[in-house]
């Protein structure tokens, strides 16, 4: 018994690869050489089968073009991947980490960046960075008010849109007051995911944006603001609508897919999502009835960008860089924006593309329930990530335990 055990222990100790120089994206050919033959572990939220299928398709392309294999580590929550990196560092595993790439944004990104847990800066040195439209999409440079500084490569733009059943809702409520009145008139037909789920917390931030006098205070850390006074109207709003929520607010759906399922089952009439193309894609797949449409608030809805980041101790950094670059490829970006595939909004600027690549985007149909760029209205800035944490904690204390 001793020998196998010893071998096992040795393997565990030596499992961490010897320290190699980190790849440099400015020397792209060397990166491609290093990457060939690597298997990249991409940790990505896996709650939507369409996203999983897209990741599989990207993996096929990655292997065909660059000889890099992709392994999708399916996460129920992005924080799981962050936790893994944090745990690895606390156990002293500074090389050969298990996470190569994380699909990330918001407080997860900020906490990793601030904690020195990210490899970078790399994004602005990627060959395909030249296609990214940083003027039209300022969120790719500043995530939740925090400068990205190349520690994450953007890959999709998101906007909160409300999804409603036009067969049941004649005139969708386009202001917070209208929503409040609609909920009162239609008890049991609206709800939001249970914070600290990200979509549920986003709903709280959306309401806060609508009730605060000057949204500029939300751009600074919550500790610096008069938190009680600023959030009082938010809690007032929630207290008012809760008795008329789905299940009288005694239970909440767990997350975005669960909320979408309630809409699909006809248990609610208005839901919401961060992907403006989700409803159209779900209708195309027969998961939502074709009477579902989307709308936004007249005053705008939250908008943000999603990133690919590489942990400081990733085992396959070169392969991770190749993936981050590939996903900015116009062909892949056009595939992601196709409502039949994902309906994600691209981060690229069409005027920066070659004519044949621009044609790929122009050929895409919007989808039956998707709003055109001119109908999406204003994108509201995400508050500083400290608001996420504080609002979610407060929600749990106020609504998290049945009385």
């Amino acid at each position, binding site marked *: 018994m001793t020998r196998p055990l010893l071998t096992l222990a040795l393997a*565990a100790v030596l499992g961490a690869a010897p320290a190699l120089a980190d790849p440099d994206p400015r020397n792209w050919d060397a990166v491609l050489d290093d990457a060939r033959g690597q298997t990249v572990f991409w940790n990505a939220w*896996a*709650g939507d*089968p369409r996203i999983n299928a897209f990741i599989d398709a990207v993996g096929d392309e990655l292997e065909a073009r660059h000889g890099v294999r992709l392994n999708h*580590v399916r996460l*129920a929550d992005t924080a799981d991947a962050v936790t893994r990196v944090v745990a690895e560092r*606390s156990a002293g595993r500074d090389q050969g980490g298990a996470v190569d790439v994380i699909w990330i944004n918001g407080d997860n990104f900020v906490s990793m960046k601030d904690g020195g847990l990210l490899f970078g800066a790399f994004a602005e040195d990627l060959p395909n960075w030249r296609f990214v439209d940083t003027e039209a999409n300022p969120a790719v440079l500043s995530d939740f008010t925090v400068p990205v500084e190349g520690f994450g490569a953007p890959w999709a733009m998101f906007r909160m849109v409300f999804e409603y059943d036009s067969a049941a809702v004649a005139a969708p409520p386009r202001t917070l007051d209208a929503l409040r009145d609609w909920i009162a008139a239609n008890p049991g037909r609206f709800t939001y995911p249970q914070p600290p789920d990200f979509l549920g917390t986003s709903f709280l931030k959306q309401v806060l944006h609508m009730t605060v006098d000057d949204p500029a205070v939300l751009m600074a850390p919550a500790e610096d603001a008069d938190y009680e006074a600023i959030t009082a109207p938010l809690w007032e709003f929630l207290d008012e609508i809760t008795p008329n929520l789905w299940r009288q607010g005694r239970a909440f759906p767990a997350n975005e897919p669960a909320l979408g399922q309630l809409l699909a*089952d006809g*248990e609610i009439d208005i839901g919401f999502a961060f992907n403006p193309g989700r409803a159209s894609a779900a209708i195309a797949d027969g998961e939502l009835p074709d009477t579902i449409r989307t709308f936004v608030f007249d005053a705008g809805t939250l908008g943000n960008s999603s990133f690919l980041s590489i942990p400081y101790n990733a085992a396959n950094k070169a392969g991770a860089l190749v993936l981050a670059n590939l996903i900015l490829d116009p062909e892949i970006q056009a595939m992601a924006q196709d409502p039949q595939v994902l309906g994600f909004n691209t981060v690229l600027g069409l005027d920066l593309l070659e004519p044949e690549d621009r044609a790929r985007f122009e050929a895409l149909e919007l989808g039956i329930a998707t709003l055109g760029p001119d109908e999406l209205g204003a994108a509201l800035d995400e508050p500083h990530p400290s608001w996420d944490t504080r609002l979610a904690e407060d929600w749990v204390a106020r609504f998290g*335990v049945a009385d």
Partner: protein
Amino acid sequence: MARPLRSAGWVRPVPALTVLLLAGPVAAGLAGALLPAFGWMPALGGNALSLDPWRRLAEWPGLVAAVRLSVVTGLGATAISLAITLLIVAALQGTRAFALVTRALAPLLSLPHAAAAFGLAFLIAPSGWVARAVSPWATGWERPPDLLILGDPAGLSLIAGLVVKEVPFLLLMTLAALGQVSAAQRMTVARSLGYGRVTGWVKTVLPAVYAQIRLPVYAVLAYSMSVVDVALILGPTRPPTLAVQIVDWMGQRDLSLRLVAAAGAVLQLALVLGTLALWHGAERGLARLGQGWAAGGGRGRGVDKVARPLALGVAGLAGAAVLLGLAGLALWSVAGLWRFPDLWPASFSARHWQGQSRGVLDAVRTTALVGVLATALALALVIGALEAEFRARARPSRRFTALVYLPLLVPQVAFLPGLTTLALIVGLDGQVVAVTVAHLVFVLPYVYLALADPWRAWDTRCATIAHSLGAGPGRVLWAVRLPMLTRALAIAAAIGFATSVAQYLPTLLLGAGRVETLTTEAVALAAGGNRRLIGVWAVMQMLLPLVVFVGALALPALLFPRLKGMRA
């Protein structure tokens, strides 16, 4: 005789090794929970003992409700499961229905808890099959009613989900016990004295049987109080059960919450021990009351008229709930648009099966690898331990049996977080090896429970004959005993494999998310509520152990086609 004795050597250390492999991880894991619970976790900079984790645990607003939920669902699920089991055995024993129930046991046992819970959820949700079947013609519901059924604050759905899986387990244990207490003779005497079937059984057989199934009942209680996967699927969320919250804290980015999780784990252990003590006290109280009742001599013949239909109804209801639930899972996995209150999907689609095929196949491979490794190790250890007992001519040791039950009595959520932290420190977390060893801790007890009785019931005269023909103990084991016990070995292996497939928490925690099995993937999808996707994964989760079970039943006849006794 000198030769056989000498060659007995190799199995001698096996029982000790088995105990070490069972108790070692449990003890290490408990230590790994106890120390951090008092603030000692050097990897996170905790070097001084403090009560801080406990203070933070106490500050969690959901604590009181979560503790109450744990105790109520545990006691409720155990009492109801036990009552149903005893009712079925007392009222139906010897009937055709009973033979049917017995035959349904094996597939029901091989069904993972999570799959059964998913099926039940699809059935009883306000938009589920039951509501669809009676809508809109009987209820007027054109849309799903706004009723809080899944995740109800009292945990009733959770209790129901546990009961449908615990009744088959307790039934199997009771059936095994009946043979050991000469139940048939007791009943003959009771019936000849004019006792009704149910009353006679309860008065003469139950006291002896209960002593035999006490440990399984305790295992059910400990499991029901601390289960995570079923609670994630059917349990409440405001707040969740204590066990679910502990796992949540384990996964948080803020690592200091792991200390709070450790305090929670210790609290969960204390709760289980306290509730077990409570149950034990209730047993004694009931036994005292029962003595007077039994001595009273009431024949209770009228009871049978009520008990039989009741037992049939309850058994039928539980069976139908599981079967319909699974059928619902399978149907959702191929459904296109399926709106309320349609009883049947408007269109069908293989899209989810195609889309998931790559992930599903990967997960099947990992699940099968871990399951086969853990089962093979468990079989080798159990055979070694039983053979050692046989060669030493020892009688089954109560202490050994109790130790085998240890991993089933200590809540998983109390010792697995600590074990995970240890695995992380030695760098074994996220490896198949770590997951396999953790699975072994739970697979071994079930393999032992399945194999011990047939092993001991083997006619030892076969060994005597083989010895007289010149075979040593090794040859007797390999050439006579194991082949003769093929059927028992195959079924024990199938039960072990099914146990491994069903493991959620050990896979999740020790696999660090990198070892993905059918169960971890299916439960990860639970929160999303995408029925088609859940359907695909739950159907696979149910099929894999079932296929192994069918194979196990067919194996004896395949290996020994000419032997009549090996035919199923």
